C-alpha cells in the first residue's frame, strides 16, 4: 500500500507553459490579476514596454465576443499623444479600476520618451492577406494619424515615402512583394522619431492566409519584427496581435515545415490568453498532472471507462466523449471536473485558484488528498468528490466575498449549510454536493438532479454507500426542509427553510386564473407589441404598424380601429379554430382587420395561467412577507414560465407553426364585406409579411414619400423645426426657386421629397409657384384634401379633423407630413379658404400663426368660400376695383375677386389705423358702423354680404338673384373705408390749423415761424402749460407729422394723439386757446420792450369787462405828441372833478369809459375774445423782463 501521490502527482511547477512549451525562453506567467481581462492584458503589455529587458511582442487570444477589439481600441488610445482625448478617457477608465496599472501605463510611455507625442500607432484589422500587406496598411494608417514629426524629420519623411511606395507596389495589379528587411528598416527609421505600436486585430486572417498559401516566405517579416522588439538591437516597437484561436490551431491545415516555422515565430510572442473556455481549462487540469505510474495507470483507465458509461447514461455527453481526459484528471470525480472551470471562473481567481487547488500543499488540495490517501492495487479507486471541492472553495473564497458578482449566491448557500446544525455526516456531504451544484448550475445536464447526486454522492463511505442510500438521505433532507425538490426542473435546491407553502399557493392561484377569460388573460400576461409591416415600408416608404390582440372565438364585439388611432390595422389571434368574422363592427374610415386561428390553444392558455398564477402569488406581498427565499424561488419559476409561454405562442401562432390556421383579412371594399386569405395554400408567412400584404392592399393610394424622417406620426424636435422652416418658406417665398431654400439642410430634403417630388411647387411659364400636383402617386391624396376642403363650405372644419381623415385608408397619410400638403392646398386656394384660430377669422398666413398651427392644429379651423356667382360676384368685382385690391389668380389661373381678398383688405387696413381712430365717435355714422363690423369680423361672408350692408342701412346682398342696391353699397363701403383710413391725417391737419389760428400765424411755414417765436420767449415763462408748448415748439422732433403730434401731446397731459380719447381731442382745443393767449401777451410785451427809448414810451394796456371779456395791447406815445395829449387829459380831469369826483376817481372813470366806447374797442389791439379763461397776468413778470434787458 502506498500513497497515491507516489503514483500520480501534480506537476511541481504548474504554469501555463502548456501554451509556450516550445519556447523555453518565454518568461513564466504569474501574477495574473483578473480584475478584467483587458486590464490584465494592458498591464502586461505596458509593464513589458517599460522593462528594457523584456520583449514587446504580444499575441492576445480570446473567443469571439470577448472584447478583444475593444481592448485594441483602448490600447490604441493609451499609446496616443498627450493631447488625444481618447487617451485621457482610456487612462481615466483604467485608473478607476486599478490605479497602479494606470501608473504603469504612464511610466511605460515615459520610459520610451513618448509620453508627450505618443507612439506612431500603426493599428489595423487584418484581412485574409499576407502579413506584409497588413503591416504596410497599418503603417500608413499610423503615419497618417501621427502628424508632424519633431525630430529625425528627413528620415521620417523618407521612411513614409518608402512605405507608400512599397504599399503601392504591393497593391498594384501585379504586386511586388516587399522585402521584409526593407519594411523592418522603415519601421526602424520611423521609430527614431517616435516609438511604434504595430497592432493587428483579427490576426487569424493572416494566419489563415498563411496556411492557405503553403509558402513560408510571409512569416519572415513577422519574425524580423518580433526579434526587433528584444535583445541588443531592440527597437522602440510594440507588436500586438489579436486572434480567436491559439496560433497553432490556425496552422492545422498547414504543412509540417510551415508548422515548425510557425512554432518558432510564435515563440517570439508573449501569449496573452483573453478568456478561458471550460474545455481549455479542463485540458489545463489534465496537463497539471504527471503521468501515473503502474499499477495505478491501469486502474485509472478502467475507472475512466466505467465513468464514461455512467456519464452516457446521465446524458453528460461532452465529458462522456473524453475518456482520456477523465483518466488524466483523476483523482477528480467527473462531476467535480465538470464544474471546476465554471466554479473557478465565477467564484475563484480563475487559474490561480484552480492551480493552488490542484498543486498546492494547502489542506483540502488535490495534492494533499493524494498524499493523505492510501491505495492498493485491486481496490476500487477513490475520487475527489463534490464535498471536498466545496470545502476547499469555501475556505479559499472566504476573502473573496464582494469581488464576484455571484458572491451573494455563494454566501447564501454557504450560510445555510453552515447553519444546518446536528446534521449527520452523510447528509452533510450530500447537502454540500447539492449546494455546490446549485452554485454553478444554470440548467443543463450537470445540475443537482436526482441521478447526478446519486452518482456523485454514492462514494462507498458510511451512510452513502449506495445510490439507494443517497436517495434515502435526499428524502430526509427534503423532509427537514434543508433542500427542496423542484419537480418541474428535476433539481434539488439548498433550502434554508421557508414557512411559505408555495405549492398550494400556486395551485389555488392557478385555479383562480383558469376562471378568467383566456383572451383577457393573454392580453394581460402576454400583450403583443404592434407589428411593423416591414416589406410594405420598403416598398412604399411609409412605416405602418398593426396592433395585435388576443381574442376568443366568441367575442361580444370587435372594436375596429378608426381615424385618430395610431395603428394602421389590427391582427387578431383567435384562441380557437373559428375566426369571429361576423363580429367585426362596421364603421366609417375603418382600418383593416386580420385573423389567425389555432384549433388547440390549450397549451398556450395553460402556460399563461402558470405565469398569471405566479404573478398573483408574487404580488401577494402580505402573505409572502419578507420570505425572500420564497420570493427568489417564485421569481425564478416566473422567468421560466414566461419563456415557456413565449415558446408556446410561437409554436401555436408563429410563422412556421404547423397547427395554426391561415391568415385571413377583411376585404378593403365597402360593399362586399367578406374576408380574403392572406397566404396561398402552401405558403407560410411571418406575421410581418402578413400585415405587409394587407397594408399593400388597404393603403394602395398612399403617396410614396421617400423620407422616413417626416413620414411618421411623431416628429423628432429637430425635424419638427425643419418642417416649420419649410412651411415658413412656403408662405414667404412661394415665387422663388426651391422656395429660396439654400444648401442641403433637412428642410431642403423635406422640400425635395414632398413639394418638388409631387409637383406641388414648380416652375410654370418661368414663374415658380404652388400649383396642382402632377405626380400620379399623389393624385388621390390631392383629391382627398380637395374634397375635405370643399366639405367646409357651410360649416367650418377643424384642421385636426382634416389630418385625422387623411390618416384613414386608402391614404393612411402620417400626421407629420399632412400639414405640408394641407398648407400647400390652402396657399393654392388662398382666395377661397378662410382660416380661424380659436374661432376668430385670420386675414392672412404669418410665421407666428404657422408656428401655432403646426403645434396645435386643434385650435384651428377653416371654411371654404366656393360660391362666386350672381350679384355677389358683381359686388365683389366692383369693390375690388374701387378699393384697388390686387387680384389673386384663382385655380383656373384667371384673376378673380374674392370674398377673402376684399375682407382681408378691409380688416387689415382698419386694424392698422391708430387706436384713436378705431374708437372715436367723430366720424360719420356709416363709417362708425362699418368700422365696428370690420373690427369684430368673424365670418367673412356674413360680414361683407350682411353686416356691412346693414351698417349702410341697405339690404343684405343675396346669394342668388339681383341686388338692386349694388352701386349704393359699393359707394357706401368705399366712402366709409376712405373716411376711416384718412381720419388720422385729417385730424392732424386740423390740429395744425387750430394751432396756427390760435397763435395768429399763417398755416404756411407754421413750424419754422413758431419755432422762432417760441425761442424768443424761452426762459421767461413760469406757466407750466406754456412751458410745455414752448418746449415742444423749439425742441420738438422734425417732420411735420411728428412735430404736430408732439405739440398735441404736450397740450393734452402727455397723451399721444394716436391714443387719444375724444375727450383728449376736446382738451386740445381748450388748452390751446388758454395757452395761446398767454403766449401772445408775452410775445407782444416782448415786442414793446424791444422798441423802448426811441423817442416814445410804450404802455401795455389790459381791459377786462364785467363779462370777463378782455382786451389788451401796447400803446405807444411819441415824445412830441405827449405834451399836447397831457394837456387834454388835465382838462378832462378838471371837468370831471367838476362833477363831484375826486381826482383819482375821475381819472379811473375816464380810463374805463374811454376803453368801453365803440371807438375805443378798436384802439386796443390785438383782441383776445375769450370769456372762459381767466386772465393770466402772473405770467408777465416785469422782473424777468427787466432782468433780460
Amino acid at each position, binding site marked *: 500500500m502506498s500513497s497515491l501521490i507516489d503514483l500520480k502527482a501534480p506537476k511541481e511547477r504548474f504554469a501555463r507553459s502548456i501554451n509556450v512549451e516550445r519556447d523555453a525562453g518565454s518568461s513564466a506567467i504569474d501574477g495574473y490579476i483578473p480584475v478584467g481581462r483587458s486590464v490584465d492584458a494592458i498591464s502586461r503589455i505596458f509593464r513589458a514596454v517599460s522593462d528594457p529587458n523584456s520583449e514587446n511582442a504580444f499575441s492576445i487570444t480570446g473567443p469571439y465576443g470577448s472584447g478583444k477589439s475593444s481592448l485594441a481600441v483602448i490600447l490604441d488610445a493609451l499609446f496616443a499623444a498627450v493631447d488625444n482625448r481618447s487617451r485621457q478617457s482610456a487612462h481615466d477608465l483604467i485608473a478607476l479600476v486599478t490605479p497602479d496599472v494606470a501608473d504603469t501605463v504612464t511610466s511605460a510611455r515615459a520610459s520610451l520618451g513618448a509620453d508627450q507625442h505618443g507612439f506612431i500607432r500603426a493599428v489595423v484589422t487584418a484581412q485574409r492577406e499576407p502579413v506584409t500587406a497588413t503591416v504596410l496598411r497599418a503603417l500608413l494608417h499610423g503615419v497618417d494619424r501621427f502628424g508632424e514629426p519633431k525630430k529625425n524629420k528627413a528620415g521620417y519623411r523618407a521612411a513614409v515615402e518608402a512605405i507608400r511606395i512599397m504599399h503601392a507596389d504591393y497593391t498594384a495589379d501585379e504586386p511586388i512583394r516587399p522585402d521584409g528587411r526593407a519594411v523592418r528598416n522603415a519601421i526602424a527609421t520611423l521609430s527614431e522619431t517616435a516609438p511604434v505600436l504595430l497592432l493587428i486585430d483579427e490576426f487569424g486572417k493572416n494566419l489563415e492566409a498563411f496556411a492557405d498559401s503553403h509558402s513560408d516566405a510571409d512569416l519572415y517579416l513577422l519574425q524580423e519584427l518580433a526579434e526587433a522588439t528584444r535583445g541588443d538591437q531592440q527597437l522602440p516597437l510594440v507588436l500586438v496581435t489579436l486572434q480567436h484561436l491559439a496560433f497553432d490551431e490556425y496552422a492545422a491545415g498547414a504543412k509540417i515545415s510551415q508548422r515548425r516555422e510557425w512554432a518558432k515565430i510564435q515563440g517570439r510572442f508573449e501569449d496573452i490568453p483573453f478568456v478561458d473556455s471550460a474545455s481549455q481549462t479542463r485540458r489545463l487540469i489534465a496537463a497539471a498532472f504527471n503521468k501515473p505510474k503502474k499499477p495505478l495507470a491501469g486502474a485509472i483507465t478502467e475507472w475512466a471507462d466505467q465513468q464514461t458509461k455512467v456519464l452516457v447514461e446521465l446524458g453528460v455527453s461532452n465529458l462522456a466523449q473524453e475518456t482520456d481526459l477523465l483518466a488524466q484528471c483523476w483523482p477528480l470525480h467527473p462531476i467535480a471536473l465538470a464544474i471546476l472551470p465554471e466554479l473557478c471562473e465565477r467564484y475563484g481567481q480563475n487559474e490561480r485558484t484552480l492551480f493552488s487547488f490542484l498543486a498546492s500543499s494547502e489542506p483540502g488540495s488535490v495534492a494533499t488528498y493524494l498524499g493523505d490517501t492510501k491505495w492498493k492495487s485491486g481496490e476500487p479507486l477513490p475520487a475527489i468528490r463534490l464535498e471536498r471541492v466545496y470545502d476547499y472553495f469555501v475556505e479559499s473564497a472566504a476573502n473573496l466575498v464582494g469581488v464576484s458578482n455571484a458572491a451573494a449566491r455563494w454566501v447564501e448557500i454557504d450560510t445555510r449549510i453552515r447553519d444546518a446544525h446536528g446534521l449527520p455526516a452523510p447528509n452533510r456531504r450530500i447537502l454540500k454536493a447539492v449546494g455546490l451544484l446549485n452554485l454553478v448550475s444554470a440548467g443543463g445536464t450537470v445540475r443537482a438532479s436526482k441521478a447526478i447526486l446519486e452518482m456523485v454522492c454514492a462514494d462507498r463511505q458510511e451512510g452513502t454507500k449506495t445510490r439507494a442510500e443517497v436517495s434515502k438521505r435526499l428524502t430526509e433532507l427534503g423532509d427537514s426542509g434543508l433542500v427542496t425538490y423542484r419537480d418541474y426542473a428535476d433539481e434539488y435546491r439548498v433550502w434554508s427553510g421557508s414557512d411559505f407553502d408555495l405549492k398550494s399557493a400556486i395551485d389555488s392561484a392557478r385555479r383562480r386564473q383558469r376562471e378568467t377569460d383566456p383572451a383577457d388573460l393573454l392580453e394581460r400576461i402576454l400583450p403583443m407589441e404592434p407589428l411593423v409591416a416591414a416589406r410594405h415600408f420598403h416598398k412604399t416608404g411609409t412605416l405602418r404598424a398593426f396592433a395585435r390582440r388576443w381574442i376568443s372565438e366568441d367575442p361580444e364585439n370587435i372594436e375596429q380601429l378608426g381615424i385618430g388611432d395610431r395603428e394602421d390595422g389590427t391582427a387578431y389571434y383567435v384562441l380557437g379554430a373559428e375566426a369571429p368574422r361576423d363580429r367585426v363592427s362596421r364603421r366609417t374610415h375603418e382600418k383593416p382587420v386580420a385573423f389567425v386561428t389555432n384549433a388547440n390553444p390549450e397549451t398556450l392558455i395553460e402556460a399563461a395561467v402558470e405565469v398569471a398564477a405566479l404573478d398573483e402569488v408574487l404580488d401577494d406581498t402580505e402573505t409572502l412577507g419578507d420570505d425572500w427565499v420564497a420570493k427568489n424561488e417564485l421569481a425564478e419559476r416566473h422567468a421560466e414560465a414566461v419563456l415557456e409561454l413565449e415558446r408556446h405562442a410561437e409554436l401555436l401562432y408563429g410563422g412556421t407553426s404547423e397547427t395554426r390556421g391561415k391568415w385571413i383579412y377583411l376585404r378593403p371594399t365597402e360593399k362586399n364585406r367578406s374576408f380574403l386569405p392572406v397566404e396561398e395554400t402552401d405558403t407560410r408567412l411571418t406575421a410581418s409579411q402578413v400585415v405587409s400584404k394587407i397594408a399593400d392592399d388597404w393603403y394602395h393610394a398612399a403617396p410614396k414619400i421617400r423620407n422616413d424622417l417626416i413620414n411618421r406620426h411623431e416628429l423628432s424636435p429637430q425635424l419638427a423645426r425643419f418642417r416649420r422652416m419649410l412651411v415658413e418658406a412656403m408662405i414667404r417665398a412661394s415665387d422663388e426657386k426651391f422656395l429660396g431654400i439654400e444648401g442641403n439642410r433637412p428642410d431642403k430634403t423635406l422640400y425635395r421629397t414632398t413639394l418638388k417630388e409631387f409637383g406641388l411647387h414648380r416652375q410654370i411659364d418661368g414663374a415658380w409657384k404652388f400649383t396642382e400636383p402632377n405626380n400620379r402617386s399623389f393624385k388621390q391624396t390631392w383629391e382627398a384634401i380637395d374634397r375635405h376642403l370643399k366639405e367646409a363650405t357651410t360649416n367650418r372644419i377643424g384642421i385636426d379633423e382634416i389630418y385625422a381623415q387623411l390618416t384613414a385608408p386608402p391614404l393612411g397619410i402620417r400626421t407629420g407630413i399632412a400639414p405640408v400638403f394641407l398648407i400647400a392646398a390652402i396657399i393654392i386656394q388662398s382666395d377661397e379658404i378662410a382660416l380661424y*384660430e*380659436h374661432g*376668430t377669422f385670420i386675414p392672412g398666413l404669418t410665421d407666428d400663426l404657422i408656428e401655432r398651427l403646426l403645434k*396645435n392644429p386643434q*385650435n384651428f379651423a377653416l371654411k371654404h368660400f366656393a360660391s362666386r356667382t350672381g350679384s355677389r360676384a358683381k359686388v365683389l368685382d366692383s369693390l375690388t376695383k374701387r378699393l384697388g385690391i390686387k387680384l389673386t389668380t384663382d385655380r383656373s389661373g384667371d384673376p378673380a375677386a374674392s370674398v377673402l381678398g376684399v375682407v382681408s383688405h378691409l380688416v387689415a387696413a382698419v386694424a392698422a389705423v391708430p387706436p384713436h381712430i378705431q374708437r372715436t365717435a367723430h366720424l360719420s355714422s356709416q363709417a362708425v358702423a362699418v368700422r365696428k363690423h370690420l373690427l369684430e369680423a368673424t365670418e367673412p361672408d356674413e360680414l361683407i354680404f350682411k353686416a356691412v350692408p346693414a351698417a349702410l342701412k341697405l339690404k343684405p346682398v343675396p346669394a342668388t338673384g339681383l341686388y338692386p342696391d349694388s352701386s349704393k353699397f359699393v359707394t357706401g363701403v368705399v366712402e366709409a373705408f376712405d373716411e376711416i383710413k384718412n381720419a388720422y391725417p385729417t385730424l392732424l391737419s386740423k390740429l395744425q390749423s387750430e394751432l396756427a389760428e390760435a397763435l395768429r400765424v399763417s398755416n404756411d411755414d407754421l413750424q419754422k415761424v413758431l419755432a422762432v417765436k417760441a425761442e424768443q420767449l424761452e426762459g421767461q415763462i413760469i406757466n407750466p402749460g406754456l412751458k410745455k408748448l414752448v*418746449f415742444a415748439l423749439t425742441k420738438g422732433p422734425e417732420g411735420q407729422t411728428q412735430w404736430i403730434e408732439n405739440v398735441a401731446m404736450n397740450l393734452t397731459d402727455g*397723451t399721444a394723439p394716436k391714443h387719444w380719447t375724444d375727450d383728449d381731442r376736446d382738451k386740445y382745443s381748450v388748452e390751446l386757446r388758454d395757452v395761446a393767449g398767454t403766449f401772445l401777451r408775452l410775445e407782444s410785451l416782448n415786442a414793446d420792450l424791444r422798441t423802448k427809448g426811441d423817442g416814445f414810451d410804450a404802455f401795455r394796456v389790459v381791459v377786462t369787462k364785467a363779462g370777463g371779456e378782455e382786451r389788451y395791447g401796447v400803446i405807444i406815445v411819441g415824445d412830441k405828441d405827449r405834451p399836447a395829449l397831457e394837456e387834454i387829459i388835465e382838462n378832462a380831469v378838471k371837468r370831471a372833478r367838476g362833477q363831484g369826483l375826486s381826482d383819482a376817481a375821475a381819472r379811473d372813470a375816464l380810463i374805463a369809459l374811454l376803453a368801453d366806447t365803440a371807438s375805443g374797442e378798436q384802439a386796443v389791439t390785438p383782441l383776445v375774445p375769450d370769456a372762459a379763461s381767466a386772465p393770466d397776468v402772473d405770467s408777465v413778470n416785469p422782473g424777468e423782463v427787466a432782468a433780460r434787458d
Partner: protein
Amino acid sequence: MTEPTRHVCGISGGKDSSALAIYMRDRVPDMEYFFCDTGAELPETYEYLNKLEVVLGKPIARLNSDKGFDHWFEVFRGALPSPQMRWCTKYMKIKPIEAWLGDSPAISYVAIRADESNRKGYISTKPSIKTSFPFVEEGIDHAGVLKILDEAGVGLPSYYEWRTRSGCYFCFYQRKAEWVGLADRHPDLFERAVAIEKKVLIGTGAGQDANYEDNAMQDRAYTWTSGESLTELLERRDEILARHEQAMERESKKRHNRPLIEVFAEALDSDDDSDGCAVCV
C-alpha cells in the same frame, strides 16, 4: 465695402432707458430705438412708450410683436416660464434682439447711470456689437434722469406708484405686495394671470379660450409666486400689505438721517437692479 454702423438704444419701459433715449435724440440723429414687446406689458408701460415715441419723434421698433407671450404660451402648450426655465427671456428678448441686430456692426447705448457702479445691462455676445454708456461718461445720475424726463414732459412711468419695475404683468419676479397691487389696479389682468396659472388663456378668439389644462402636470401645479396660487395670495392681501408696510418702515429707519427724496430715489434704484427682465436695459 463695410456696412454702416447702426446706433441702437433699447427701451425697457423703465425710467433710465427712457431718459437715455430722450437724451440721445438730438445727439445721435440716426438712432434706432427698440422695445422688446412681450405683448403682456402693463398698460402703463404701453402708455409711456406712446409718449416716448412722440417725444422722440420716431417710432420705437417693437421687436417680437408677432410672437409675444400669448404666442409662446400656445406653442409651448401651457408650459409657463419660471426662474428655472426662463424661456420668456430667451424667446421674447434675447432672440428677437439678436435677430433684429443681425450681423451688421452696431453700437448699443446702455442706460447705466453714473451713480450705478456695479450694474450690468444686456451686453451682447456678438463681436459686432459695441456698447456705449453715455450716462456714465457724462456723469448723469439719478437726479439727472428725473430732470430729463421732466423737461421732456413725460415724467416717470406711472406704474412706479405701485410696482418697482417694468415687464410682464404676471412677471414671476414681482413681490407678493405687487401682485396685490396688480389686483387693485388691473383686476382684469390679475384675472388673466390667475387663468394662465391654470394653463388657460382668456379671450384668444371668438371661440373657446386656449386651454392646456390637460397638458399640466397633475401632481405639481404651477404657481407664479412661490408656495401659493394667486387666488390664495389674494385671500391673504391684508397680511401681505401689512408685512410690506413693515418692511418699508424698516427700510426707512435704516436711513433715518437722510432726506426723504433720497430714500425714495434709492428705493427705486435698488428695485430696478434686482434680477428681473433687465435684458433691454
